[in-house]
């Protein structure tokens, strides 16, 4: 085992990235005044909608992503690499392009025409917001969950089976507990990414206040007015979103804190 670099050196090498990430956010905060936050009363709907849709997107991602992650973790099949690569596509596809793809498929140019015949619509609805967020954010969950499932020793799963446990029971009583930190990490990343989703939402779900206007869209709309007030409002909204997200993520990580020790690394 090699020697660890001195803490001071590691800190010094970490500073460029940390400063690069933190200073713009700090810059947002110092540009606001208490008066700026008066806007946030009006933005309560947007904040509430953001939290609701991000949480719903997370639930959907977990429900439909867990089987995929398990399948990739424990099964070998022809085309596995292709499937894995397909799951990476939403991560590299520009969100606006993703929104356009969803709009063309689920809108009137695609399945939406059938939905319209039954007086149903997906585009420009809260459901469209959730769908956009699932499309963009679910790969984060799948990747983390797969890594977590792969880390479960095969011997433990086999031992569970030999003791008479069904696959489902083994999954819930052995696999999930052991991989829970990876699952939670994936869930946090997914929720955070969904919360910040903008491009796909804008194109597929639109910017209807109270229905599809999430916080990122509210921030965009405010600064798009071109006025000084609009700019200050957008900054204040951004600070609120950053602060609330930070608290939620910090709490989630605190609740599931994993003490890494050398033999677990």
């Amino acid at each position, binding site marked *: 085992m*090699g*020697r660890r*670099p001195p803490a001071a*050196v590691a800190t010094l*090498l970490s500073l*460029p990235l940390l400063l690069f990430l933190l200073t713009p956010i700090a810059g947002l905060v110092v540009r606001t005044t208490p008066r700026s936050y008066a806007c946030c009363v009006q933005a309560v709907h947007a904040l509430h909608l953001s939290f609701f849709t991000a949480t719903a997107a997370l639930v959907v991602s977990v429900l439909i992503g867990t089987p995929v992650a398990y399948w990739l973790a424990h099964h070998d099949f022809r085309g596995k690499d292709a499937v894995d690569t397909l799951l990476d596509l939403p991560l590299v596809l520009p969100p606006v392009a993703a929104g356009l793809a969803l*709009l*063309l498929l689920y*809108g*009137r*140019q695609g399945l*939406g025409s059938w939905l319209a015949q039954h007086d149903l*619509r997906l*585009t*420009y609805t809260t459901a469209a917001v959730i769908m956009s967020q699932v499309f963009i954010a679910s790969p984060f969950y799948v990747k983390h969950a797969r890594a977590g499932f792969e880390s479960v020793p095969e011997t433990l799963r086999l031992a569970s089976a030999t003791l008479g446990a069904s696959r489902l029971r083994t999954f819930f009583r052995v696999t999930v507990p052991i991989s829970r930190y990876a699952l939670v990490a994936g869930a946090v990343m997914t929720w955070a990414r969904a919360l910040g989703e903008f491009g796909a939402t*804008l*194109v597929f779900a*639109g*910017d*209807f*206040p109270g229905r*599809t206007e999430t916080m990122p*869209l509210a921030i*965009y*709309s*405010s*600064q*798009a*007015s*071109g*006025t*000084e007030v*609009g*700019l200050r409002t957008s900054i204040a909204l951004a600070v609120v979103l950053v602060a609330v997200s930070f608290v939620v993520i910090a709490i989630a990580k605190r609740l599931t804190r994993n003490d890494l020790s050398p033999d677990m690394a």
Partner: protein
Amino acid sequence: MLRAALCAGLGAVALALALIVVAPAVAGQRGSSGEKVTLTAFVGSASKPPALAAKAAFEKKYPNIIVDMTFGGSGTLLNQMKLEEMGDIYMPGSDDYMDKAESQKVVVPASRRIVAYLVPTICVQHGNPKKIRGLQDLARPGITVGLARAGAVCLGDVSDEILRKAGVEQQVKANVINYAASCELTQQMIQLGEVDAIIGWDSFKAWAPDKIDLVPIPANLVRVRSVPAAVAVYSKHEREARLFVSFLTSKQGKEIFSSHGYSVEPPKVK
């Protein structure tokens, strides 16, 4: 191993710093070579096609002037110019953003010119399957309407004004299924058949002539808007910037905008 890692890390930091220092100097050289002048134009993205065509024609006519264009929402562009105190030309999607630019002292008022005219109109799907004849029909049960977002898009403010004047604002807004965040997204709603009608600009039809029909709005309800251009107060090449703005309103510039479906003469609204 540690030494190698340290060297790699310090090398990466040094390279990043070098790029940050060198890049502006290199960019600056293009504009200050003495031979070519580079202008930066902030252009509303709805005007992108004719603006790019105008740029190409202008650069052909004046080979020593390069016009770099950045596109985006008119309000976003205004913020960028203001915060960075940069830019030579501002060409927003509508005149109310130019009014804001003037009041915020971002542009030279005397340099302001009208490049094209925008007439608000009802845009319906090709063939007008829902038989929409006027604003009252937008309030019919079962009709789906799309509008631009007021406050964020000039077209949204215009739509609200028209509906208010016509006395059908509440009724029509009950049928609105989306408020789009830009002119292009507003037009897209009707182009993709997501709504039965929008209130848009007459130039929207030119963007998708086979998909959109126009239903005129009564003249007493309509205020014709315009696509303006002006020289920014931050411009370091004011002479060349004024030249470009003049080009946009020249015979050649008007032909370019007209070929893209814009009205370049004051329209007689019916």
